[in-house]
């Protein structure tokens, strides 16, 4: 199929940037969206132009790097997929496709379609971990009984890949779905209890400091999340936060 692409080009973080229009012909409907961009880049290089910079790593939906806002939706028109899992058969011959970077003050563009996602990392550093004894007497996790439904929920929350689609799609650029997933995954598990209260307080604090917006429960994040992270986790984070705030001594 033959396509018209409107791609955001921006030299560096400071440059202004603009949408550029490119024609790309003979794209196979069996190719993935990123393969289509590879074709575009080959064409640009052959013409002596600068290729489009875009993030990607695993190309199988697990690393969360392929952050593209395609035709007005995070990761494009398909549901429960990342951009690398998006097939060109979702588009038609003659289509015009807008390709933009995530837009949020907290996730600024570095170049073309690549954003600086370190704000999400800093939230993780603020509490998205557990401390374990590594002196050689670490308890075998399999020896600790965990209710099946709790284990399942922890697993559901842990499937968040930190792609940032929730932020990109939210009208408020809120990161609450991401933070809720990261707060919740440990809150179900015995290993997560020790730092449970500090975790939610510190992670929410860091999230606010990074300049993400405030959730108004539109539910857009849940629809666009490639891993189907549920709004239930945001409700859970709110409960965790309320409980931790009440007993906090500072």
């Amino acid at each position, binding site marked *: 199929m033959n396509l018209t692409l409107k791609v955001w080009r921006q030299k560096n973080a400071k440059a202004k940037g603009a949408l550029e229009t490119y024609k790309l012909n003979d794209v196979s409907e069996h190719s993935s969206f990123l393969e289509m961009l590879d074709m575009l880049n080959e064409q640009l290089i052959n013409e002596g132009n600068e290729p489009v910079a875009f993030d990607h790593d695993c190309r199988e939906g697990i690393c969360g790097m392929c952050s593209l806002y395609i035709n*007005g939706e995070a990761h494009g028109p398909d549901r429960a997929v990342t951009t690398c899992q998006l097939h060109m058969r979702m588009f038609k011959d003659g289509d015009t496709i807008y390709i933009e970077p995530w*837009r949020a003050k907290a996730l600024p563009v570095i170049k073309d379609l690549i954003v600086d996602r370190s704000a999400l990392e800093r939230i993780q550093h603020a509490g998205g971990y557990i401390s374990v004894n590594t002196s050689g007497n670490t308890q075998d996790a399999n020896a600790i009984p965990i209710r099946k439904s709790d284990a399942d929920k922890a697993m559901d929350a842990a499937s968040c890949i930190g792609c940032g689609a929730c932020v990109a799609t939210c009208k408020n650029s809120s990161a*609450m779905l991401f933070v809720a997933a990261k707060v919740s995954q440990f809150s179900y598990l015995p290993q997560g209890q020790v730092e449970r209260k500090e975790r939610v307080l510190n992670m929410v604090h860091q999230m*606010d400091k990074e300049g993400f917006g405030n959730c108004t429960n539109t539910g857009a994040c849940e629809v666009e999340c490639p891993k189907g992270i549920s709004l*239930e986790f945001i*409700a859970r984070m709110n409960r965790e936060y309320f409980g931790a*705030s009440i007993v906090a001594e*500072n």
Partner: protein
Amino acid sequence: MSNGFSKSSVGRKILMALSGFFLLLFLFQHFIINLLSIISADAFNNVSFFMGTNPIVQFAIQPILLFAVVFHLIMGITLELKNKSARPIQYAMNKPSENSSWMSRNMAITGIMVLLFLGLHFYDFWIPEIKTKFIEGNMSGLNEGGEFRFHEELVHKFTDPIRVGLYILAFLFLSLHLMHGFQSAFQSVGFNHRKYTPIIKKLGNLYAIIIPLGFIIIALVHFFNH
């Protein structure tokens, strides 16, 4: 309570929801009283007199209500401004209707329309009440003929077609506000349950349709009856 609670995003969300819940309760009792006005003028007069003179209602619940409205308004606008500033550069192509409802995305707009109506409503009812009761010092609730004045005053307000029109418009906006707000408030306070949340959403839609529609019907009944 941690110091940062009322400054944090999650804390504010919870406070917003609490003020929303209070307003939902208030609106419900207001609706029941208004409903009386088309059923029995006497009953309406008695309840109005009670609400207007009972010290608990006047000096405990009414200040809380005023606080809740002002809080909800200021917090709502603060959040809206913060949220706007969190995305300085907009998408060239965006399709928000693919993943969220119009109501959920326009709470500030529907809220401000309700606010404009509240201005008119205060001017119509609340300010004259305060004037009669606390400036002129007339706590009797009676008119010059020695009868309760409340029902008569209410009916009088609904004779002007422009006022009735504005009233109807305002309740349509309130309906849109509550269509999202009711269920949103539960989510904000952390109540989300696979079994109960679908029921809350249905209840929310019922509330958001029945109550505003009821207010509209009551206004129309008075308008066509006078």
